[in-house]
């Protein structure tokens, strides 16, 4: 690993420690929940990080599927641009603004919609070909780790505050559980599949999962309106000082997630190179000059 990694690791550790300090000592105590609410500074940033990683996996999977044929690749490119353009314009139309939940500013939604083509093209540029699939695997795995933390800290938070570990109508936690299940099944498929097209199959599953998520959200949302249940984590607005600490905490975890992803990605690169070397070995079979079939450990031009 380059010199950059250890430096970033130290910086991230410092940032995490600072975030912890802010979370425990600087942030004000909650009027209703007391000090227990500080779990939020680990629970929510982990959730946001997990969702971001799953989003990256979704974009990478779509791109991987689309890049199979040049026609689909171009089609996907234009569809993504169209989504960006239409989405941004729609946010400023009065009819659409009526549909937005209260408190959401149209510019915020527009920026989020713009994230789709932005991520699509950035990912396509920096992760060509096989690296796209490696990114998908990396983001899925690290996403599951962060999602596990959300599902563990959620009930730990709920118990002292609401007296219950779990509420099936809690739309956020339940949706997160389904998302976790989908991505664990994605990882299992990758591990158990012995097809040459494993990566394509996994990408297809990721797309199915992404299509599923809004449906999950709506089904639980309606169920909840019929059977009102407590929402763990609370809704409503937040004290700006708390929000500030929350964002600091999120930044720290994002840096941490970035480093973990980088490591996992490097691991995958190494693993595939070794696999190729093994395959070459069994193929070549004779005493070839090592220089030709030597281990390509340095950055290859793939």
């Amino acid at each position, binding site marked *: 690993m380059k010199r950059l990694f250890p430096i970033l690791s130290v910086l991230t550790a410092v940032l995490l420690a600072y975030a912890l300090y802010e979370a425990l000592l600087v942030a004000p105590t909650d009027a209703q929940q007391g000090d227990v609410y500080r779990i939020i500074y680990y629970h929510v940033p982990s959730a946001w990080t997990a969702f971001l990683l799953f989003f990256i996996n979704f974009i990478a999977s779509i791109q991987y*599927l689309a890049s199979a044929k040049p026609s689909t690749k171009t089609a996907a490119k234009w569809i993504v641009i169209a989504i960006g353009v239409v989405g941004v314009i729609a946010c400023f139309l009065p009819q659409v603004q009526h549909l937005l939940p209260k408190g959401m500013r149209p510019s915020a939604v527009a920026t989020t919609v713009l994230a789709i083509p932005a991520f699509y093209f950035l990912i396509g540029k920096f992760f060509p070909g096989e690296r796209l699939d490696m990114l998908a695997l990396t983001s899925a795995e690290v996403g599951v780790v962060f999602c596990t933390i959300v599902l563990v800290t959620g009930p730990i938070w709920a118990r002292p505050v609401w007296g219950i570990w779990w509420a099936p109508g809690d739309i956020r936690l339940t949706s997160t559980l*389904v998302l976790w299940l989908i991505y664990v099944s994605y990882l299992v498929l990758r591990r*158990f599949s012995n097809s040459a*097209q494993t990566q394509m199959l996994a990408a297809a599953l990721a*797309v199915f999962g992404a299509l599923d998520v809004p449906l*999950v959200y709506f089904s639980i949302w*309606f169920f909840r309106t019929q059977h009102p249940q407590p929402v763990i984590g609370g809704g409503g607005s937040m004290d700006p000082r708390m929000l500030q600490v929350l964002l600091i905490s999120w930044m720290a975890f994002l840096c941490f997630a970035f480093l973990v992803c980088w490591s996992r990605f490097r691991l995958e690169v190494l693993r595939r190179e070794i696999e190729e070397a093994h395959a070459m070995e069994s193929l070549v079979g004779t005493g070839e000059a090592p220089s030709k079939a030597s281990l390509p450990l340095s950055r290859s031009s793939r």
Partner: protein
Amino acid sequence: MNSLWAVTLATMVKDIRLEWRSKDALNSMLFFSLLVVVIFMFSFDPLAEESRHIVGGLVWVGFLFASVTALNQTWARELRNQVLDAYRVSPAPDNALFLAKALGNFIFVSVLEALMTPLFVIFYNVRVLGPAWQLLPIAILGTWALVVNGTFFAAMSLRTRSREIMLPLLLFPISIPAVVSMVAGTTAILTGEESAHFYIVLLLTYDVVFTTACLALFGMILHAE
């Protein structure tokens, strides 16, 4: 379009005829479905006050397990006789095979459901307090939701180790919104306490979205080695 439906129909008829001739698989699945209902009857007290509220859930969980046994053998015959390879090189449209299998599974699972339902009605003394006719769209849309994804994931699991466990592992998480809708909708109709409209619409949306996705991606699955 003509060729698509012609091939689909022909494949379906062939499947049904083959299945009918060797009734082993059919019979064991029927018996399994019966066992599921009986186990539920012993585990969840039918005489309890709240039984009407949970019957909807029990029925659909029972259907879910029964349909998994049916789905697992979807492609078994094709694998045994290398039919899949023959299909891959034939000019017949890929989607025709998928539709044939999905529709065949739909009929098969519907038969299982038709046999399990009277048992549930008898054991749990089910009386429908809401609009009973709405149970039909829920049954049809719900069964299709399970079958369309199940057929697709069964094909996906063909190239995996532990094929039989892979199918439910992939199917269950994705099916959660459909299951929630089916159960909540059925409960709503049985108890008459709320309207099932939203759930029927959600099931319809689910079916449209995933049927499209399956049809779009099946070609790739079929040609996977």
